[in-house]
């Protein structure tokens, strides 16, 4: 099985190339998509001010209150159904899911988080509707039919929760003992010195995470990739905007962590 993560940057720029390439893999892939960019656009359009939390150590994270959760689920719902409908047009019967459907992704709500408040004091506040993945029912995700999974989980209490798409893709790949995890975004791979790094061992990836050469989202991707590679899952970080991006990734494009 291969796990294909369609990053938000691909979703918002041009998902057509990936979608057209998916039918070929319909009987052996699981698709996970992002869409943060559409969430931001919608929040803006609806005049909802983004809220942030500052954590001890200075890390700032988005605060998902009830209203933001609603927008998150709605935006992901549109992306999910757009992909599924497009696949229908290409002759593939796909099933779009959130974690709530059949309880495929159960998460624990971060009920209490420690923040530094506006007065500079440490305070414990409600964590909002963000989840930490607790259980994946991978038997429900195995193709056929092709499953298209949104980064939305459910809590035991029946709450919908915002979860991280890369983390979800990684967890699904691990639980499914997938052969490959393909992370498609708008970058061609890990770029060092102006060139795509074709291949990394898990150890090299880990070293890079600790270095200054790699930033933010790529850091997290490499960290997860090195973990996955140690479990025998080949991780590919490559572009979802090129022609036949899945074929390309399997044929050596991008950065392979193996």
């Amino acid at each position: 099985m291969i796990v294909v993560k369609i990053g938000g940057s691909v979703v918002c720029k041009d998902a057509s190339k990936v979608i057209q390439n998916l039918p070929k893999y319909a009987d052996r892939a699981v698709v996970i998509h992002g869409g943060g960019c559409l969430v931001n656009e919608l929040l803006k359009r609806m005049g909802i001010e983004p809220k942030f939390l500052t954590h001890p150590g200075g890390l700032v994270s988005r605060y998902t209150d009830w209203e933001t959760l609603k927008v998150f689920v709605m935006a992901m719902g549109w992306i999910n159904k757009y992909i599924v409908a497009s696949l229908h047009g290409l002759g593939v019967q796909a099933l779009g899911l959130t974690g709530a459907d059949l309880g495929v992704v159960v998460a624990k709500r971060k009920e209490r988080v420690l923040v530094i408040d506006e007065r500079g004091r440490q305070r414990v506040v409600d964590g909002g509707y963000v989840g930490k993945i607790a259980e994946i029912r991978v038997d429900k995700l195995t193709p056929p039919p092709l499953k298209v999974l949104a980064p939305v989980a459910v809590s035991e209490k029946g709450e919908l929760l915002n979860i991280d798409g890369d983390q979800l893709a990684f967890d699904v790949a691990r639980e499914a003992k997938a052969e490959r995890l393909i992370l498609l975004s708008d970058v061609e791979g890990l770029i060092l010195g102006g060139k795509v790094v074709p291949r990394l061992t898990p150890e090299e990836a880990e070293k890079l995470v600790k270095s200054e050469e790699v930033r933010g989202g790529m850091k997290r991707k490499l960290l997860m990739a090195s973990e996955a590679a140690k479990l025998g899952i080949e991780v590919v970080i490559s572009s979802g905007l090129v022609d036949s991006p899945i074929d390309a990734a399997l044929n050596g494009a991008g950065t392979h962590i193996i």
Partner: protein
Amino acid sequence: MATQKLVVQCKVCGTEFELPEDVMDGEIASCPTCGARYIVRLKGGSVTLEEFKGDVEDYGE
């Protein structure tokens, strides 16, 4: 009405200590003697201390 001092007692060493006047619900307070940390809970006008076991998410991801 005179400002009421918010005095609480540490559950570990028994020291009585004062909370800041503008303390808010959920705020972390430390015992000045033993360093034990608590979550301040303000409910219905009364102040209670909840043990802070550090079991809150720090959003590290």
